[in-house]
């Protein structure tokens, strides 16, 4: 009986210990991976068209989903915000509500989530499949560093694309809010733009949004390339790595968003 309990206890303790050491090992591995990517960045930028290609795949091809989502999010925000603001007779303030919500929070966060599922998963699958088909090993055989040739361009492609996508998301959201608020509901256009103009500051509101989107871009890109590089070289391994990319990136975006918001708006007003 007591031997049973001791055995079960040691089993669970061993699992806990294994989990913790595994997690720490993964953290160290991914940090070294990031350092390797940064180290190989100059070599990757010497062939800049590789990075531009990745900006095309991660950024340009994500435009449609980002712009459409931004438009709809802005429209819904405008509609819902109007219903609430109307109760307090503050429906003229709709412009501020839509703009601040998009620029501070929703723009970077939703664009980041969409970017993670649209571009991050593709990056992971691509690199994972390269590893499975031993293309990465072949590159190393030819004395081509796969981190400089494959990983760093994809990482920087994501880092460059993400702030631009988030800014476009916010801009289209504000336009969507304008369409619903001014054209459909009938708020005065001057009040919409004027209140927005008076209530949103470039510093800190817009710049904080840009910093956030930049951090999200770096986080999602790093997770995507790392999961692809770390994937088990089987079909199942690539599939689970792709899933992990989306899950971990989404959680990372939301958690980082909270942490950054705490620091950014703590002393703001």
């Amino acid at each position, binding site marked *: 009986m007591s031997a049973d309990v001791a055995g079960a206890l040691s089993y669970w303790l061993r699992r806990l210990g294994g989990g913790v050491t595994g997690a720490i090992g993964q953290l160290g591995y991914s940090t070294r991976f990031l350092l390797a990517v940064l180290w190989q960045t100059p070599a990757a930028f010497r062939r800049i*068209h590789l990075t*531009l*290609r990745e*900006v*095309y795949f991660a*950024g*340009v091809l994500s*435009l449609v989903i980002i712009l459409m989502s931004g438009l709809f999010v802005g429209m819904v925000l405008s509609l819902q915000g109007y219903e609430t603001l109307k109760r307090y007779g503050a429906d003229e303030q709709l412009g501020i509500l839509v*703009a601040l919500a998009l*620029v501070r929070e929703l723009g970077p966060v939703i664009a980041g989530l969409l970017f993670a599922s649209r571009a991050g998963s593709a990056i992971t699958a691509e690199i994972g499949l390269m590893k499975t088909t031993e293309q990465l090993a072949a590159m190393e055989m030819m004395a081509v560093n796969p981190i400089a040739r494959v990983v760093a361009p994809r990482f920087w492609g994501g880092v*460059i*694309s993400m*702030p*631009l*996508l988030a*800014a*476009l998301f*916010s*801009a289209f959201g*504000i336009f969507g809010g304008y369409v619903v608020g001014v054209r459909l509901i009938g708020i005065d256009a001057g009040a919409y*733009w004027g209140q*927005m*103009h*008076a209530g*949103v*500051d*470039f*510093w800190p*509101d*817009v710049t904080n*949004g*840009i910093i956030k989107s930049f951090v999200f871009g770096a986080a999602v890109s790093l997770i995507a390339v790392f999961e692809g590089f770390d994937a088990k070289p089987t079909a199942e391994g690539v599939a689970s790595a792709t899933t992990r990319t989306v899950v971990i990136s989404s959680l990372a975006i939301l958690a980082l968003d909270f942490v950054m918001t705490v620091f950014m708006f703590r002393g703001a*007003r």
Partner: protein
Amino acid sequence: MNRSTIDLWVGIFVAIGFGAILFLALKVGNLLTLDRSPGYRIEASFENIGGLKLRAAVKAAGVVVGRVERVRLDPKTYDAVVTMRMDSEYQFSKDTIAAINTSGLLGEVYIGLDAGGDPEMLKDGDRITKTQSAVVIEKLISQFLFEKASEGSSKDQGAAQPAPAARAPEGAKAKATEGAKK
């Protein structure tokens, strides 16, 4: 897809991306509205600034003519000294009165300027001498209640009958609405 097509698309993407950032900065935010002109600074000291915040508006006749740039406490007089940056487009006479106002019951706190008739204008670094502090509602209420209480006790002493005490709340209500109208 060949390289020049990709370059073209990336160029378009980056251009409209920066266009969006510019739109957020200029049209949505107010990057260039007040920071464009350096303007001039004036100071004013208030006994109490209430809920006045940095970057609050300075208005004359409802028009925004400047922003609150700095708020500090004078260590000698214990007054709040507010530094305002004014738009250089607008000049105000030396005897301008600055008051701390609230737009609406729950609205934002701003500084209202009431221009005077002095031919001399305020210059950079000048101080407005005539100021009016923020109205602290709690103080008003406590003052009012204190007055009411002292009135009631003197009445009790004079007439020595409990009946007016029952009517007192009505009187208080009437006075309160009067105060609100003011």
